């Protein structure tokens, strides 16, 4: 009896497994590009690929809301090409392989015309093959390490020459900094940025002894030793500054420790590339007065466009305290560029839109007009802001004009001859020395 029963269960499970496999195969077939297209013709679908759970939810949820807000505003104006935009939100849950899966789902199952998404470089790298294979468009809104130019990706965040290099220039000129601490979280963005900065500083005559490089694990919370080291490094009689590529949550305990150990911005200023209004919303900023951040946008910049954007955003989120930040502005620019390109070619066909995007101009929120470049990066102004007591930034310096984003850093040996040009050369890594497409990268 007992053996019969177990046997029964075993067969049942096997049968179920068979059924499940069959279902899986069918499901795959249904979602493959070969399946007949069933996209609804009355709307244009826009994919949103931002983590809504897991570690990155803290930063990415806001960007999901931003695109929903922009779509809402666009639909109020009548949509695009006479059709309403329809957002499709998926949650890749801060899980890098899941980003690729969800991207595939958005493109093949939901038939989106464009995707706005990703935050970390790992997640971008994970979805790249999917966008290439299925030929769709990704707008990537976060400042990143550069060294990339892909046909299917449009980079609306800052490349290193639009954030890191101007920040260092500012410290050299205005604060007369002679000694540098490059502190970062141990992953690709800080490592590449610090490599570029180190090469740049050395080209400006800074000695190796005057550069201290320090990496910490993700979510590092015990900063006592490192802050004490920075203090020690700063007591060599030369003006010292910290260039911080510390990511995400680790910033709060870092700044708390700086404040508690009494390091003031007038002694050792910290310039950060990943600390914005959103991150400061979680801390008391009074001890941080005067520490710096370099971005292409600050909420405190007073322009009519920005004031309108903030007002509408706070009304949309029904939260009068909701802050805005740099990656949000990047999405704002990217979204408007995409709308303009689609209206220009009167189609959402990715090939046509990709070819139409370079050269498209869209206003940014700081009073200028950003332009999509042939290397799929955009022109942006660079601002240096000092942290104020209320969690906002006070702009103390800005570049005279807009800075064009370099896909490949001019400071690094391996990439200084490369350019991305998807208009003339149709190549993301064109070597200007050998006049050939190819080299480092893909």
């Amino acid at each position, binding site marked *: 009896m007992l053996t019969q029963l177990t046997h029964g269960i075993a067969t049942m499970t096997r049968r179920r497994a068979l059924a499940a496999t069959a279902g899986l195969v069918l499901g795959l077939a249904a979602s493959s590009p070969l399946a007949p297209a069933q996209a609804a013709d009355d709307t244009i679908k826009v994919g949103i690929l931002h983590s809504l*759970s897991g570690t990155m939810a803290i930063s990415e949820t806001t960007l999901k809301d931003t695109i929903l807000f922009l779509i809402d505003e666009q639909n109020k104006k009548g949509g695009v090409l006479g059709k309403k935009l329809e957002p499709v939100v998926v949650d890749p849950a801060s899980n890098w392989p899941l980003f690729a899966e969800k991207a595939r789902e958005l493109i093949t199952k939901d038939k989106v015309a464009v995707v706005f998404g990703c935050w970390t470089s790992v997640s971008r790298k994970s979805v790249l093959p999917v966008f290439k294979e299925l030929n769709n468009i990704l707008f990537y809104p976060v400042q990143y390490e550069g060294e990339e130019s892909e046909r299917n990706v449009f980079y609306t965040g800052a490349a290193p020459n639009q954030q890191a290099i101007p920040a260092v220039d500012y410290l050299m000129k*205005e604060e007369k900094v002679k000694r540098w601490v490059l502190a970062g979280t141990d992953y690709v963005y800080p490592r590449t940025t610090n490599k570029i900065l180190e090469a740049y500083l050395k080209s400006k005559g800074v000695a190796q002894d005057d550069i201290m490089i320090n990496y910490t*694990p993700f979510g590092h919370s015990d900063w006592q*030793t*490192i802050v004490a080291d920075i203090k020690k490094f700063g007591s060599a009689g030369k003006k010292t500054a910290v260039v911080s590529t510390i990511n995400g949550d680790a910033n709060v305990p870092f700044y708390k420790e700086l404040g508690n150990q009494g390091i003031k911005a007038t002694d050792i200023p910290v310039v950060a590339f990943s600390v914005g209004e959103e991150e400061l919303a979680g*801390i008391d900023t009074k001890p941080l007065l*005067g520490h710096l951040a370099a971005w292409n946008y600050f909420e405190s910049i007073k322009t009519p466009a920005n004031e309108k954007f903030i007002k509408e955003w706070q009304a949309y989120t029904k939260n009068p305290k909701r802050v805005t930040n740099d990656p949000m502005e990047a999405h704002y620019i990217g979204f408007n560029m995409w709308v303009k390109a689609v209206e220009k070619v009167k189609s959402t066909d990715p090939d046509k839109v990709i070819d139409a995007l370079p050269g498209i101009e869209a206003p940014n929120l700081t009073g200028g007009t950003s332009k999509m470049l042939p290397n799929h990066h955009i022109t942006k102004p660079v601002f240096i802001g000092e942290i104020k007591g209320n969690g906002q930034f006070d702009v103390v310096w800005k570049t005279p004009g807009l800075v064009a984003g370099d896909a490949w850093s001019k400071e690094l040996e391996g990439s200084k001859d490369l350019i991305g040009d998807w208009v003339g050369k149709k190549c993301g890594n064109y070597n200007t020395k050998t006049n050939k497409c190819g080299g480092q990268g893909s």
Partner: protein
Amino acid sequence: MPALAGPFEDSVAKFANDEFSDTEAAIGEVAASGNALASPIISALQDGRLSADPDSKKVFITQADGKIVDATTGAAVDKLPDNAAAVRLNNRLRRTVEAALGGLTLLSPDPAKRLAAAQSVFKSHEENLLPTVEGALAKESVKSIKQAFAEARAAIVLFKSDASDSDKLDAVAVVKARGDQEALALLTGLGDQQPLVAKAAASAVSSIQSNLAMWSMVQNAWYGLSLGSVLLLAAIGLAITFGVMGVINMAHGEMVMLGAYTTFVVQEVIRTRYPALFDYSLLIAVPLAFLVAGFIGVLIERTIIRFLYGRPLETLLATWGLSLVLQQAVRTAFGPTNREVGNPSWMSGAFELGQITITYNRLWILCFTLAVFAILLAMLRYTALGLEMRAVTQNRRMAASMGIATSRVDALTFGLGSGIAGIAGVALSQIDNVSPNLGQSYIIDSFMVVVFGGVGNLWGTLVGAFTLGIANKFLEPVAGAVLGKIAILVLIILFIQKRPRGLFALKGRAVEA
């Protein structure tokens, strides 16, 4: 524009131009003017209380008591003009302000201000302040401030190009006696000097450096104790649920997180209703966090874990799933972004002990951890519940036959462990982010401490936490934070090979049970 009378008024009006270069010129001119309002103007500028009206070029001081006066005349004003904005500063100007204020407050009647002034002159070593510093030095009666003035004078003399060699040698000796990092910065930044002075300065630098190197050992030890206390605090609840009960509780970190969020809620209520109580917010949060996390712990034990005793794999999976559920629940309720938990005034800042800086928040957390540990130990040793807990874990059937309601004890034990994790959350909210991910960063460390210390032994957890903390902090300056952490993990793996039951292994029948 109204006609302005006199140079002082013209200088003050420059604050209204909203140009950093004009502000800088104005600071210099106002400081040099000798006007009685100079000091209030510049200290108002430093605190962001100086506002200017760009249209009328009038400048106003908002006094500490909220009254507003005209900066040029000192006459009271009813209210600020609508378009008046605070005068902006950048870091360069803040340094200028500090130096100017240092010069202006050297003779202040308030000893704290005089000390601050002396220290800022030590940093800025403005040559033209020498007579004022010397005058202040002669008049000063408080010993520690006199010392600070002497050091400030020495700093100026060292950078004065026409000071005699013997004066400079004396100055080097004074700065050397100060012996801290600022003295070191001053001496290394000295630039070209006469050979005799340069030699003295070099020897002073090396003596300060060797002295500081010794202090840095003390500092590492302190940092180690502090990190150890954080590890212990995070692990102590797990030492009960995992160590004593044997439940592999992956949701332990989330109990810590719930404690931190309880602190946030308490502070929110206090901020909106009873702002005067803010300094007591943590004291109020501790019992509440214990109750919240403890209650949820009991709930989890009654609904999930009690069906899984003796099935470690299923417990692991169930509690891990539970941790995800709790995280997402908090994310839905409070939002994914960090929540601001403020530090009460007694938790902020630092004091100097010799040449090391001890921050108050770390010191209090160390004391708090030791207190929690002592109370827990006493509870297990001297109370009836503690006795029952020990009885049940040592021999469940025997305890049951002695009339102990074992399932009730199980629930209470799990609730106790969870409650203590909640208390840990209150303390950790002071040094870490309060976000739904808070618990995840502590779960691995907590298991590491409990396993290393010896499962089932509270003293083992104590020694384990401090050992790991101190080892980590001595490795970090040498190997860096990333390698240091890896090295610790490798050491633990090797150690567990040698002693699978941890530092303090339980012996006897309890082990086999």
